[in-house]
């Protein structure tokens, strides 16, 4: 401890820009929530994604500087977890579950419908940078299978027809924020359990919408 972090550039940084003062302040508040700074690496990586739309080398260097480890150590963490997207990622990340319960109830057809309607295969992003598509392992919505998430906001009881409508809605309406209730109403069906309470918060990008990350948008915000 105490030594200057080693600067190790793995590839040329795409993003030379430093974080906004707001993000830096948020990062400091997040670090204060942990007994040791390094524990804040994971939440800070989400801040880095919110800054650049995905996880850039510049973002990882910023996180390294904040917690006092090397960028290579940050990369080691980031590369372990699937939600830190280091490749180009669309404004909307569509994740279709194809694990056992969704597979049994038609999840493969839902995923295929999303691929065909968007023209984007698993793990890729359209040319415009609007939509990314992936099939994912269990997202804990088995009682409402098959399930899909957009920017990690959930829709349960999806059919191939509804999945195509969802893709077209994203392409045409380009909602500023992604709200789980709104999507469930238009494109969903059976749910795992009664959601009961209206969800005011919405996602603003392909990372979790969570108050401490500053990644929460409200209903009806934006266009």
């Amino acid at each position, binding site marked *: 401890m105490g030594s200057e972090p080693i600067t190790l550039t793995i590839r040329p940084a795409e993003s030379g820009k430093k974080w906004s003062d707001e993000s830096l302040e948020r990062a400091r508040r997040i670090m204060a929530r942990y007994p040791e700074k390094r524990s804040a690496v994971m939440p800070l990586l989400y801040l880095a994604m919110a800054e650049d739309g995905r996880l850039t080398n510049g973002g990882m260097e910023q996180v390294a500087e904040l917690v006092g480890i090397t960028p290579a150590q940050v990369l080691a963490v980031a590369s*372990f*977890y699937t939600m830190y997207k280091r490749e180009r990622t669309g404004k909307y990340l569509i994740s279709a579950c194809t694990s056992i319960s969704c597979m*049994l109830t038609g999840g493969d057809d839902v995923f295929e419908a999303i691929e065909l309607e968007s023209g984007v295969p698993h793990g890729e992003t359209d040319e415009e940078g609007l939509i990314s598509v992936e099939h994912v392992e269990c997202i804990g919505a088995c009682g409402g299978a098959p399930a899909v998430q957009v920017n990690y906001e959930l829709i349960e009881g999806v059919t191939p027809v509804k999945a195509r409508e969802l893709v077209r809605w994203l392409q045409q309406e380009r909602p500023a924020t992604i709200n789980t209730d709104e999507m469930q109403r238009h494109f969903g069906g059976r749910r795992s359990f009664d959601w*009961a309470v209206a969800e005011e918060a919405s996602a603003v990008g392909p990372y979790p919408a*969570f108050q401490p990350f500053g990644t929460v948008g409200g209903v009806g915000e934006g266009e």
Partner: protein
Amino acid sequence: MSRPLVVTRRMVDHPTDSHTLDRYQETGGYEMARRSLDMTRDEIVETVKSANLLGRGGAAFSAGLKWSFLAPDRPAYVVVNADESEPGTFKDRQLLERDPHQLIEGLIITSWANEANHAFIYIRGEYPKPARRVQQAVDEAYAAGYLGEGIFGTDFDLEVTVHLGGGAYICGEETAMINSLEGLRGEPRLKPPYFPAAKGLYMKPTIVNNVETICNVPHVLAMGAEDFKGIAHPEDTGTFLLSLSGHVNEPGNYELPHGLTWREIIYDVAGGIRDGNELKTWIPGGASAPWFVPSLHLDMPLTKQATADAGSMIGSGAVVVMDETTCVVRAALRLVRFFAHESCGECTPCREGAPWLEMMLTRIENGQGRPVDFDVILDVSDGISIGLEWPPKMTTICALGPSAVSPIISLRDHFGDEVVAHIEGGGCPFGRVEEEEVVA
């Protein structure tokens, strides 16, 4: 049929506002946390131990016994395992979204009993909505003086940090979760020496408990050990949440007493099989558990012991039901694929073995299987979990490796004919589209 409800009582009675502090307090919430601070720590640990509250995360280990292992070194930490990712499981999501204060109250008592002044709630990253609800509840609890410095006017301090995972199933394993919380790759640690209760988070004594387990803690204290044990089954005490999914008419979470038979669970609770189809097989306790079949297990009670005696486990309470239209090779392949995808790469048998199983099952499902293939699959499986026994023998640091073998054991024990039909018939008799090729 009326059933005792414990952890879902409030959300059933007050569906629209069970998550709010006002409703929580109006229904007696935080009373037990307040009272527990007047109890000695030993008293609480003893009560939880004698109530035989079993961990609801998968291992069904006595929570009180776990707490009694806490080493004397300080500071100690408590971690709530809300990294619910076992395929078929969605019960904790409901508890987090619909009654987050119940979790916080349980966490206060657990932290007090284990002399921890800092607790973490580790929620999987794909659960932003549950995480927002919990964070809101944590903020409310801080504002009310139930968390923070000198909670409830005592001199006990408790900080709670809500942490989001990054999409790795393995972080539900408690030592992997601890590494992840330290800002490291979520790879499990060797036990011994890294038993969390002795050398956990930052090498300090740490208690890791599942969401449902912690949610039960206030009720155990409020009811007392004897009444808690009296709910249903003398050995498997209290209730537990069963997540039912797959080909049943009424999938969902059900809070049930232990000891119902599978027939009651599948046909009464879950409303039977869709389209009047025949039941073919079911997974009794999450993707890691060997499957059950109607000819052997339908009238068996769902208890920890009966399930173990039959070569499986109650695990996380996730029941995935498959009807007669299901290709079991494909189902096994999908489960094996999950484990191959989620292997952290630390131990060779799991890192290399699970993808081999996936590749060979893909070949069989796609009609390129050879007669020797299933023997090769069993041989590779044996390299991951020697003898293919239950409970599994381990060649790996954690149980993920043997979990990948459970679907293979199920095929071997119950569906050998169907595997042969795939190989001899040159493809899937259910005539499904081809599975994605696996690239090594």
